[in-house]
């Protein structure tokens, strides 16, 4: 997921090229990364796509797979010490070809050092490889006329072709259709006239023998019959049956996805292997669907067999996607960046035994294989130091220390399963759009949310236009989680909290997430004087607030002393905030001079990274 032009489709295309071959998709000079406007794509390094397929654990791949991929398969260390995993690495390189004057792809399988295995029977090796990972692509604009065509659709046509009609029934049906055809033609004399006129065609074109011409209304043969198969829908019991192409766009679009499912269920094993894993590259499944349909669609797509790679910018669609499965794609500083929330982090290290006992005693935090060390959570200081101390004497210490440092740094962004689960339940299900934001402003409650929006409007910095999402953390989880999430996903963020016990605790909690003090001080600020309401009163908005409460029907509001006012505001947070927001929008002066914590934060947001 990600905003437009971030590179989502390019990733799907890359998959299609690598797994689907020339017929899948093509890259041309417009897809080549250029460093600046004077760069010539012809001089570039081209495009390189690598697909790594490997066993999760030793013995996962069957003899069938190993036998079929025999010419390209590699053995890499993995699993227990001394054991190995099978892998197949495929590389596609797009380079400028002088002879054809275009970018040409070349496919190559790689050895364990990522060197080309240089050919062999490349075509058959590719075919074998792809038969285990057949790729299917459904584009955003799914046209049922094409997808359900008995001529052009790769799914529908294949399904229909596979249908078995018993020969008895077939000949019986053909007999009936023959008779029916004659009756229909005889029903109107004009059919005969048409035949006579068109017959001239034959007379003109044939030479030696007499040709003949006929009209056919009923199907001529079984394929002619089956290919007319059409899907009819009746939305409600009283309305007429209508063909699919007469249904709304949403139904049409959806039906194509289910057609794919039918194809996979009925034909995949027959066409490929028992172990084949279909790869579905699906673009914008949300097209033409209403929010509820989009939300339920995820469950349908998720239940499809195989590997699904879905490009979406629907906040509704991702509301049910597990957070670990999301890849956030953004274009930052001239570069497409991909962020995710991995469950663990791995570094490649030389094979040696000194870490084994630390791993064993790490209570599941660490795991290792020959050549890798993995941390399943945040690598704490104590364990980190233990690892450092136990680097083998024969090892390149500097190199390993750098690697451990990187591992620590990466793992400090780890978010635990429980926390993500809470986020999934509380925030993601209602606020899917936060993942599409360019910047986050974290505030405490809903009144902060409303007033922050009003101030931004008054300051001419419209949050929507600049992709800023304000998150009222108290209602959606807690601020520290959002700060950690922002950090992991590299979403620039700021926070404004109440200057009270709770606000200070939030900042402390953020610090506890391993975010350096300096950064916390930079990103988080408190209102100057107490909580939001105290700040408003302190900023001299008492009169306005009393009037607002009065208008809200609170008798005596105009006579409240400050304490009474604050009490009442605390009870009417949402109501007063809404009224005050209107007031701020009408009087931008307030936004510029009062509640300065918000004002400062909003100004800072504008060039925040």
């Amino acid at each position, binding site marked *: 997921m990600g905003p437009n032009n971030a590179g989502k489709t390019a990733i799907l295309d890359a998959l299609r090229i690598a797994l689907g071959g020339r017929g899948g998709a093509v890259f041309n000079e417009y897809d080549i990364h250029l460093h600046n406007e004077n760069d010539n794509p012809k001089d570039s390094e081209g495009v390189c796509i690598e697909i790594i397929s490997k066993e999760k654990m030793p013995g996962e791949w069957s003899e069938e797979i190993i036998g079929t991929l025999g010419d390209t398969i590699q053995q890499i260390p993995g699993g227990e010490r001394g054991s190995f995993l099978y892998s197949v690495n495929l590389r596609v390189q797009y380079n400028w070809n002088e002879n054809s004057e275009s970018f040409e792809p070349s496919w190559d399988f790689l050895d364990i050092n990522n060197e080309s295995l240089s*050919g062999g029977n490349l*075509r058959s090796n590719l075919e074998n490889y792809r038969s285990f990972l057949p790729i299917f692509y459904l584009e955003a604009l799914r046209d049922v006329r094409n997808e359900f065509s008995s001529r052009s659709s790769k799914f529908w046509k294949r399904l229909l072709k596979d249908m078995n009609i018993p020969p008895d029934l077939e000949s019986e049906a053909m007999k009936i259709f023959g008779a029916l055809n004659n009756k229909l033609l005889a029903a109107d004399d004009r059919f005969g006239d048409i035949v006579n006129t068109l017959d001239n065609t034959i007379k003109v074109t044939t030479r030696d023998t007499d040709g003949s011409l006929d009209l056919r209304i009923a199907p001529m043969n079984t394929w002619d019959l089956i290919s007319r198969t059409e899907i009819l829908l009746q939305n409600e019991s009283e309305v007429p049956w209508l063909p699919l192409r007469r249904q709304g766009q949403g139904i049409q679009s959806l039906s194509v996805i289910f057609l794919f499912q039918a194809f996979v269920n009925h034909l995949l094993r027959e066409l490929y292997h028992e172990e084949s894993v279909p790869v579905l590259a699906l673009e914008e499944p949300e097209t033409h669907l209403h929010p509820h349909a989009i939300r339920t669609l995820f469950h349908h797509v998720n239940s499809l067999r195989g590997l699904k790679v879905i490009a979406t910018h629907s906040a509704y669609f991702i509301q049910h996607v597990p957070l670990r499965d999301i890849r956030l794609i953004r274009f930052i500083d001239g570069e497409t960046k991909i962020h995710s929330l991995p469950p663990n982090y791995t570094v490649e290290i030389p094979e040696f035994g000194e870490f084994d006992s630390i791993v064993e005693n790490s209570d599941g935090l660490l795991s290792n294989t020959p050549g890798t060390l993995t941390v399943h959570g945040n690598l704490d200081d104590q364990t980190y130091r233990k690892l450092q101390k136990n680097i083998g004497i024969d090892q390149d210490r500097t190199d390993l220390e750098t690697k451990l440092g990187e591992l620590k740094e990466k793992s400090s962004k780890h978010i635990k399963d429980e926390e993500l689960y809470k986020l999934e339940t509380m925030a993601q299900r209602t606020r899917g759009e936060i993942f599409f934001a360019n910047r986050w402003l974290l505030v405490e409650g809903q009144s902060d949310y409303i007033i922050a929006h009003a101030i931004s409007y008054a300051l001419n910095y419209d949050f929507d236009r600049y992709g800023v999402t304000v998150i009222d953390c108290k209602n959606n989880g807690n601020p520290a989680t959002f700060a950690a999430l922002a950090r992991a996903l590299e979403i620039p963020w700021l926070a404004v909290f109440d200057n009270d016990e709770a606000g200070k605790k939030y900042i402390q909690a953020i610090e506890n997430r391993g975010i350096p003090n300096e950064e916390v001080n930079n990103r988080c600020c408190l209102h100057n004087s107490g909580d939001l309401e105290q700040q408003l009163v302190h900023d001299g908005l008492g009169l306005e607030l009393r009037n607002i409460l009065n208008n809200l029907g609170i008798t005596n509001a105009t006579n409240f002393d400050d304490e009474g006012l604050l009490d009442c505001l605390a009870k009417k947070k949402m109501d007063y905030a809404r009224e005050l927001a209107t007031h701020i929008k009408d009087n931008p002066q307030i936004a510029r001079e009062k509640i300065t914590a918000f004002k400062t934060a909003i100004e800072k947001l504008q060039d925040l990274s």
Partner: protein
Amino acid sequence: MTDKLNISLQELTDIQRKAVDWNDEPLLVLAGPGSGKTRVLTTRIARILEQSPKKNFRILALTFTNRAVHEMKTRVANLVPGLEERAAIFTFHGFCTKILRQHGAHIGIKSNFEIYSRKADREALLEDVLKKEFKNMWPIDINLLKYIDSLKTKLIKPEEASIFLQENAGMDRQKSEHIGLVYQLYEEEMNKSNALDFNSLLYYTRQLMRRTELRGLYKTIYRYWCIDEFQDTNGTQYELLKQMAGNDFRRLFVVADDDQTIYEWNGAHVRRIKCLVNDFGCEVIQLTDNFRCPRSIVDAANRLMVYNVRRDKSKHPARATKVKSDDNNPAIQCLVHNCDEEEVSEIVNCLANLNPYERGKTAVLARTNALLGPIRKKLEEKKIPNSLMTRKDDFSSPQMRWIVACLKQINRPQNKRNLVKLNETFRSFTEVSVETEDIIMHAETELKDLLTVWIESILKDSLSCETKKVVDLLRKLNRDSFNPSREVKELIECLKPSEFKGDFKEDVSAWNRIVGEIQSAGKGVSLERFLQGMELRSKEPTPRQNSVSLGTIHSIKGMEFKRVYFIGLAQEICPSWHSVKNPNGGATIEEERRGCFVAITRASEQLVLSRAKKYNNWPKDPSQFLGEMGLYLASS
């Protein structure tokens, strides 16, 4: 089942069928000449493929010549079209090349290694090493290569060489250490050049196969293994086979004929068949029917082999299946000439009297190439087309050698040794050349590759129009879009082979055959893979139509001719002087006898045995083999 396979199965004899249908246990098929062993082998492969249509395992078949590989591939494809991809048919060296390319990275071998098959290339490399390292301290002795090869065959590493030579060859310390050092330097230089010689292919494959998991992988991918002409297996090849099979692999199917063991000089050994039977617990089937030769030849061959006392006593005599031959036209004829010149001219006269079609089905065989030389010369004089059957490591014409050097240069842009060769071959057919030292210097200072600089400086010379065109075409060759049947073909055509008689034309014919063979394994082969394939193949030209085949006993294995002239059947010629003087308890004579056996059993209709009373003016007795075959009386 395909019709062709069905028919092929029907046509088998009971015993052949038994071999084809053999289960998953180890089997040795002892198959005499003309007993249909290739047919049994290919039908068996086809049978297993046909019976496992939904499976993806492959059948590994190893043999010794690319000719046999091609023949077997064609037959299997013909029997079970569409399934032939699962038949992995290789020469031993081809199989090792494949393994090293795919998995060599585990022991530091890059997949794009180059194969040095030519002795000259290896000598040049060794010479460079010796010059650089020892200057004038030791004489440059390229014969050291023999030691290196022998050590490598025994899997002795450079660091172990000295001790090994002292302990096993009784060599003194100084010399053994020198050889060890040379061996080490040679290996380092080969490594630096990312090159492997023939022995290294086996050496490193064995090293790689120490990995249990890799052996497991190969047993999974290749569920059945077939070995053709097992009697030719040398020690290293057999050890590799045993190593790969381990203790648990059973599905081994071996075809051999101990009577055709004629490569003892290359490490083959008659005893190895016995080792195989013991090591794998093979059952044995004997195919004794000879479908090829007339009865009198089969009888002569049977009589001959009885004299090999080391031969397995359980071996049955061959049985001729051909119907009785025409008594007026006996299948065996013996000729006696006064001297070798007379032998040559009379044999050539006989050949001249044959019609061209018959000549194409005729072979002249001899113990050594030396005997064939004069025949060839005479045939050339009389303009009788002939082809010498011999393994050729390199092309003969400078044009073809130049093209290969160019391809190698494109593949390895920084290879200086190759640039020298490229420059020299170019000079020998254009008389244009440049100083390679200058090229190397320029390339280094201008950061360009050697070939580009060479082309630039050649073009500065005043070239003929045609030469310029050739060099221009060379510029069109590139690594990424290499296609031997497109740009290279254009380049060859531009050199106008049709205007050259002899070498170049023959080389082009060999080139085309090699391209065809390599491409039959899959189109779109990369340049480095192509060069690897070319190095593994012999560069002899495809025999011209209706040409007489000339071959030594060792070069015509597995072949068949309607008419065979076997010349030089005199004592000390065949059997050789060496074997007569050093009988080695009879072992060397026995190998000579097997050679004779191989030669006579090539004939499917007629065998002419010829001898002269004098060779090089030395009187020679008739070959003892004539007597052993029961033919001496007939000839005297």
